[in-house]
């Protein structure tokens, strides 16, 4: 009889403990985006070189859209990877766009110079673009197909190889089943 009681107790407590253990493995801060496979919200970005860039002007190209800040450690970690990926796909039907959030012009420009970033970058002064893309942790990267649909989202630092492969998928309008994750900093 005592053994039966022990077994029944374990059968009840066991799954609860398993659920608790699973909970500890999850990132409680993580917000799953509802934007995968949805149309990318149009925006116009004031670039640091004085030009304005509109997402609508990039229709027909696969777009890599990256939100970053100079104070964000994982952004610094991925910066060289992104430039390397850009050098690889430059001149094709793909384009990179960087958006600085919660940053000063001086710090942002120093960051771009430090990592020798050559693709277009601009500032999202009011965080409207960041909110339009549901940004909560940086760096955040979005891959947009030539028809303007988001095919993949990656929260956190991303490697060059994954950027290129996901851009190639975006160019073919292949939507990923789920978003990806790396090291990130929460926005301020």
């Amino acid at each position, binding site marked *: 009889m005592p053994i039966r009681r022990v077994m029944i107790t374990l059968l009840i407590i066991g799954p609860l403990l398993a659920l608790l253990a699973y909970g500890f493995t999850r990132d409680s*801060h993580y*917000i*799953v*985006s*509802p*934007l995968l496979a949805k149309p990318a919200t149009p925006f116009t970005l004031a670039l640091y070189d004085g030009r304005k860039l509109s997402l609508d002007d990039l229709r027909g190209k696969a777009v890599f859209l990256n939100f970053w800040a100079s104070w964000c450690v994982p952004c610094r970690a991925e910066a060289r990877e992104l430039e390397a990926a850009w050098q690889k796909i430059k001149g094709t039907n793909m384009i990179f766009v960087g958006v600085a959030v*919660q940053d000063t012009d001086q710090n942002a420009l120093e960051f771009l110079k430090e990592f020798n970033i050559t693709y277009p970058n601009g500032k999202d002064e*009011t*965080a*409207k673009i*960041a*909110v*339009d*893309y*549901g940004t*909560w942790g940086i760096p955040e990267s979005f891959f947009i197909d030539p028809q303007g649909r988001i095919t993949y989202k990656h929260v956190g630092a991303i490697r060059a190889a994954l950027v290129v492969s996901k851009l190639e998928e975006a160019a073919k309008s292949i939507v990923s089943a789920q978003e990806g994750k790396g090291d990130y900093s*929460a*926005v*301020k």
Partner: protein
Amino acid sequence: MKLTRARKVFILLLLLGCIAHRLHAAPAPDLEEQTRAISAELRCVVCQNLSVADSPSDMAQQMRAIVREQVQAGKSPEEIKDFFVSKYGEWVLLKPRTTGFS
């Protein structure tokens, strides 16, 4: 039809009454009040246990500015909340909507 003097006076008084009512009608709810009320229902994406109204984070401040702008544009509270849900999911509502078995 020729109006009698009494009818003219009546119509004039009616018109004056309408004008007076319009001038003294209840004022539109204060913009900041509306902004605060809607922001209080949204979760801050930085300080996730605080509302956008209460959170001191820069992002909450920026979200409040977006709420204010949308209120000024004439959007309803539901439309504004729907906007944030479309970007962050139902999670962004401090009080999730009841659907299905919830």
